[in-house]
């Protein structure tokens, strides 16, 4: 894996069902520089695998554009950090 890849931990608001998980995942994965996103309904959180130049604002804007969800960044960590 590219050494510069990061995990970005996000809090996710507004999800009520598995469809919501799909919508948030799609929104996050459409952001340029995002390699993948794992969204969890129960813990209301997401882990995004992304290049370091992906700004939190871009992730938030993509999710806000869905009209009903919110994300905010908790922290960034190296992808090697499990």
């Amino acid at each position, binding site marked *: 894996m590219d050494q510069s890849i990061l995990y970005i931990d*996000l*809090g*996710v*608001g*507004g999800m009520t069902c598995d469809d919501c998980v799909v919508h948030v995942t799609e929104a996050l994965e459409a952001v340029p520089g995002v390699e993948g996103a794992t969204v969890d309904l129960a813990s*209301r*959180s997401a882990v995004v695998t992304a290049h370091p130049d992906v700004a*939190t*604002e871009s992730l*938030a804007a993509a999710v*806000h554009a869905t009209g009903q969800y*919110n*994300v*905010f960044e*908790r922290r960034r960590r190296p992808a090697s950090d499990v």
Partner: protein
Amino acid sequence: MSDPFDLLILGSGSTAFAAAIGAGELGARVAMVERRTLGGTCVNRGCLPSKNLIEAAGLVWDAAHPRYDGLAPAQMAVDFPALMGQKDQVVRDYRAKKYNAVADGMTDLAILDGDAAFTGPTEISLDGRTIAADRFLIATGSRPIVPPIPGLDTVPYLTSDLLDADEAGRLTELPESLIVLGGGYIAVELAQFFARLGTRVTIVARSALLRGYEPELGATLSEVFAAEGIEVLADTRTERVSGDGDGVAVAVETPTAGRILRAQRLLVATGRRPNTDDIGLDRIGVGLDADGYVVVDAELRTSQAHIWAAGDVIGTQRGSQMATPVGARQGRIVAENAFKGARRRVDHDVIPRAIFTDPPIAVVGLTEAEAKAKRHPAVTATTPLKYVPRAGAIHRPEGFVKMIASTIDERILGVHMIGESAAEVIHEAAMAMHFKATIDDFIDLIHVYPTMSEALKIGAQAFRKDVTKLSCCAE
């Protein structure tokens, strides 16, 4: 150690709950820390219990003082402990419904009891336990000021905490006599409450009643109080306090003479101060002003970027007011700024406010003095409520409405009312001012006849003509 909370809120009042609900909706894991009773001042020892009791005292008073010929006075028996008991139940029920149940219904909200103080920029100590969070909201509210009066520390005294349902400071016996120190909104509300239940009440105020409000409001209230047998000592300094048998003696200096006042109980209601003195803010560099209020920017951020403050702890900065609904609005703004990057700024241009005396007082916007200080060219019109048909119809002619309008564009800048239903009527003025209404907007709106809200239509007409000559429905 477990994951840090996304937001840790110090306090659990209306500000804290609005922030917690807002942050929760945005996905945050929230902790709320409370050292007293969940719900804060308003529900436990402020707005809610005082309004419950004031209404009851009004029923007793109205029965004994019917306004209509043909109705004979009736003396209601008052069981004070039972009256306070029903108030306690109202408080507990409301707290359970609006606070505990709301908290229980939220995912990812932890409510932690105990004494909290910052020990580092991202952690607090809660009774010795360390709790970490990424962001904080200081919403610890305010408490009564204890003024530095010689001897005050040697006698028992009441504060507005007497309203509490569950704490030690609560009151269960009606005092035979009471000295109230202070002339602000809490002092006048509680003074009239006790007086109407039969307590002999003396108010000792440093200046006039309701300093900071339109002066005619306090003057009118003073006349009402005098007529109800409440003694008001204005412009009076309290020199010292001492015990006097089972009661208290208070040495005062009125404008004309020194006097010793004696009463069974003493109520200290000389203002409120922010709860910011023992929560470790000095350790983490959160700036306070000279009076201890947390300094915030227009987005409610403190001098630390990850710490916000809202509610009573910010005092009157940026046009804010120490009032429950103002704090709640600010709590919601903090949630959106902290977790949505919303960068919302507070808007305090229109904050209606009421004082629940009888007659009630309600205000919104600028006073005449404030308009002058801002060099805003303005005119005023004061209309006695006896010209409002409903006031005459139900024998409640006392009071007035004073409106302040800009001479540039005729926008209404302020409305100040004392009289029947003022606390309800003020919302029409507030909504109108929110939409930047002019004198003619108030005049042109058809009002229900006969209501006290017509006071605003007639009050606006007073800018144009002699309102003593209006026909029916103020046309």
